């Protein structure tokens, strides 16, 4: 048989539509590995049609109001099922995240897809992950009996793999209040706009006059998970910003990654362009860090 199909949802499964967080965690406690939660379904349903994932229990989160919305509580707390479109509309000051959400495939996907879903899918090409990594975002994982908070960096383990336990749910993404004089930017390179990235990068800079007080650089589609370029970040902090420095750091960040060649791009193209977009993201972030 032709091994591909995105038309027919063949596997059979039970569908749950709980309305409270507790019910969700109860279902997860009961079904564990055989369950999969579904937010917008833009990744999960496709994977189920392709039979890459075959949960026997699908738990919809779309009726759990507690998981939706954005609130300020010192940190910025984003409910896991908040749509990409809402984030794009409501958080324009988080430049990198807003830019990532703006380039998020098509309009239809922007309305259906959710931030939590994008992270839990754990694609190396996730658009939302690099900006969130530069904001030092944390994720709140809830089970029936416990709750824990992880830095996003420790959440991703590999393509499609996260640190979540089978009975856990990603409930919230928290972004610490930004330091003053911070700016960020996100740049994505893809074959066509509605495609996933060949390479993408986010940068966040915090300035004190002309000195870089804090810096973050993160890249997507260049490693098994979204990654930070820690060495490049270190070499920025404490330095006086200049376009020449951005150029040098871009190249350095590109050396820190070891991308592969695949159907979307060659290793060489990814590495070459990573240097360019990291530099450009730094220049833009600096300009915004007024």
């Amino acid at each position, binding site marked *: 048989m032709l091994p591909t199909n995105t038309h*027919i949802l063949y596997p059979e499964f039970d569908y749950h539509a709980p309305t409270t967080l507790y019910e969700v965690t109860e279902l997860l406690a009961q079904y564990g590995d055989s369950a999969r939660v579904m937010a917008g379904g833009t990744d999960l349903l496709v994977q189920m049609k392709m039979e890459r994932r075959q949960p026997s229990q699908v738990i919809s989160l779309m009726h759990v109001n507690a998981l939706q919305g954005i609130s300020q509580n010192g940190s910025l707390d984003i409910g896991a099922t908040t749509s990409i479109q809402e984030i794009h509309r409501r958080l324009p000051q988080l430049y990198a995240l807003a830019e990532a959400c703006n380039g998020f495939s098509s309009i239809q996907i922007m309305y259906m897809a959710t931030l939590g879903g994008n992270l839990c899918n754990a694609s190396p090409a996730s658009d939302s992950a690099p900006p969130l990594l530069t904001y030092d975002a944390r994720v709140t994982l809830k089970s029936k009996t416990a709750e824990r908070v992880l830095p996003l960096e420790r959440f991703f383990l590999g393509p499609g793999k996260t640190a979540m336990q089978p009975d856990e749910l990603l409930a919230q993404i928290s972004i610490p209040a930004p330091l003053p004089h911070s700016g960020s930017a996100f740049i994505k*390179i893809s074959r066509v*706009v509605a495609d996933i990235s060949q390479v993408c990068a986010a940068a966040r800079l915090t300035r004190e006059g002309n000195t870089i007080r804090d810096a973050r650089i993160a890249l997507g589609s260049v490693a098994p998970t979204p990654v930070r370029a820690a060495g490049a970040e270190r070499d920025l902090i404490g330095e006086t910003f200049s376009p020449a420095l951005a150029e040098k750091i871009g190249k350095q960040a590109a050396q820190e990654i070891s991308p592969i060649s695949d*159907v979307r791009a060659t290793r060489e193209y990814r590495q070459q362009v990573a240097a360019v977009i990291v530099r450009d993201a730094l220049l833009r972030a600096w300009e915004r860090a007024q």
Partner: protein
Amino acid sequence: MSYQILGNDYFRKDGIGKVTGREVYASDVTLPRMWHARVLRSPHAHARIKSIDARAAQELGAVVLTYADVPHLKYNERIVSIPPHLYRDRTVLADKARHVGEAVAAVAAPTEQLAEKALRALQVEWEILPHYTDPLAAQRADAEPIHDSYILNGQEIPVENNVAVTRVVQVGDIEEGFAQADHIFEREFVTSRIYHAQMETKSCVCDPAPDGSITVYPTTQSIHNVRQLLGEIFSIPLHKVNVKRVAIGGTFGSSIQMNSIIPICVALALKAKRPVKLVSTREEDMYDHVRYQTKLKLKIGVTREGKITAGHMQALADIGGHNIQAYALLSVLAGWTASLYNYPNLKFEGKAVYTNKTPSCALQGFGNPQATFAAESLMDEIATELDWDPIEFKLKNYVGLGGTFWGQGPSVQSIVRSDGVPQLLHDGAQKIGWRARPKPGTQTGRYRHGIGMARGFHTSGAGAPKPGEVIDYSGAFIKINEDGSVDIVHAMMDHGGGTLEAIAKIVAEELGVPIERVGISPADTLTTVYDVVTHATRGVYAGGGAAHKAAVKVKQQIFDYASRILGLQADSLMIEPDYELMQGVIYCPNFPERRITLGALAKQLQVNSWGTLAAVESLRQVNCPPAYVTYFIDLTVDTETGQVTTNRAAIGSDCGTVVNPAMAIGQLEGGLSKGMGYALVEDNQWDAQTGQLTSKGFWIDGKTPAISEAPFVENIITHFANTYEPSGPFGAKGIGEAATNPCAAAYANALYNALDIRFTELPITAEKILSALAAQDERASRASDYLENKVVAVMQAAE
């Protein structure tokens, strides 16, 4: 010329149905007792089927169809070519898979879910054969034959070295021609294998009746050709085969042929004795059809004065697992080349080779985007090398007014009688700022700006004075209803471009009836006369021409009967729309008080039992006028990422009289979108190891540009030539395929303008741009090293 109706924009007759989602496509057709079908498609690129065990599937209650259950008649799905040129190499289901995705069995069951389950229960034993994704490998002497033979005109012809067909076309003597040349230019161009990416995947519903007749609702561009082929394959007399026209969700040529799923659906329905629906998945559709991939070696000789003396094209087409219309493809590659420029001596040598890939078919332009990419790229280079403005050089050499145009290969030739090329090139150059374009090689820095130009055309239909190698005629039946409204019964398909809207306008204009009172009847093969197919940019010109011919006849009847009632000579009468009465009104200018509405006339005819005002006509156009197009592309290249941004485009069309202005503009904008994808990103690559698409058929890796990468609509400048085609209905000719043909060459020429680099392989991706820039840098530094060394050496010598 001024018209009452032509040239005005109206709401589309099918508009509300389409925007509200109520329009009925093949996949929307649902009938009582209907079952659903799924097709077993080969995961192997080349494999013989040793056995299929269907017991488990049958136990699930499914009807199963294998090679043993279907007629073994070899057919060719595109019966546009006349029988002597119809290469028949396939059966309803294959006994051997010749490409991944080839249909080898099918099931029908009460639900699609159960059909899928039954499909998975089929046990196939395969004998894997060596497969070829490269046409050179497929031609090796020891290569496994993909086809042992095919049927041509009733004869079984063996296939040698997997070569499907070759064709040589010669005009004059190229050796002599090249001997007269002062300069000879030669380049090899490679074009990509893109998917049609039409919105609707191929679908079909078949409803068999107890008397042995069938009613079919297919995705198709030709209801009559589907009917005739089904009748032949299943040995059903044609009066018992009714093919209904349902709306089609775009095609770009993917349904010129009878789609291979249609006879599968019919065979299942006949076996199940109930209606069956078969809907292709997107992945199945991507394994079903692609544009012909070609390698084109083009050599052109030119005199010092800029006159072409000879041309030589060698074409290799990689056609995939079946020969849908490779003979016709080679013919048109020769024809488009011969019609772009005046070659006193021309030789075309074409070869089409089978490979174990998705079968190729026409895709908007049928060989023209390929031939024009090669010709217009090389012409730009020749002009630049000889220090000519490319516009002037092309105007000196192109085939225009009075020239011979090959509308569909050497057998379809006519004389050009309308030509808007000089106007289009002049207007386009002005609108884009051609004279202010950069000089190649003068820009440095990250972002480089370029303007490129290419011209081309498409034929309007495949009509000619002589019967050609392809069938080309249309028919229409027009009747006046008893209230003065008009029914047009026409078998033509409208792919969304507005062909039927145009036909309604042409009829309304001729009859002098408000467009609101002209209806397009639902069509099927029982109640319409033959129309070959909506392809070859023939809809308005040929389909509209047939409707016009019938309308002229009806109009004569109107005047004859009105003359009896009004007591005036028929020849003195006129008819024009009256928008207050919403009627055509028949009158004589000398006696304005003697008038009658068309409705009153038709009613009087009925009351008097005189009969119905109606006519049915067929029309073979005896010309195939070129629908010229010019393209100017203004772009910016980011030399650090290789990304190309289209800033502006100026697209000029010579479609004769513009019938549907808004839709004509839409065609040009759509042609840009399709052409941009072809130029810059789209390509279906095959994994040589597995013979599968590297995208695995997934849309995400189809890389089709979306509306967001097109320039803003105000930056797409469209303009039209002020021409009148004497042979067309009200002076109209075609536009659809022309709208995209020169686009890729215009991009390549704009990239040359920006970067001083010639790109000869499509698509020109960001990665190819970056590596070409790196090679350019390396050459430059080697050259400067060399120069430096030389200077040092000279200085040392001087010392």
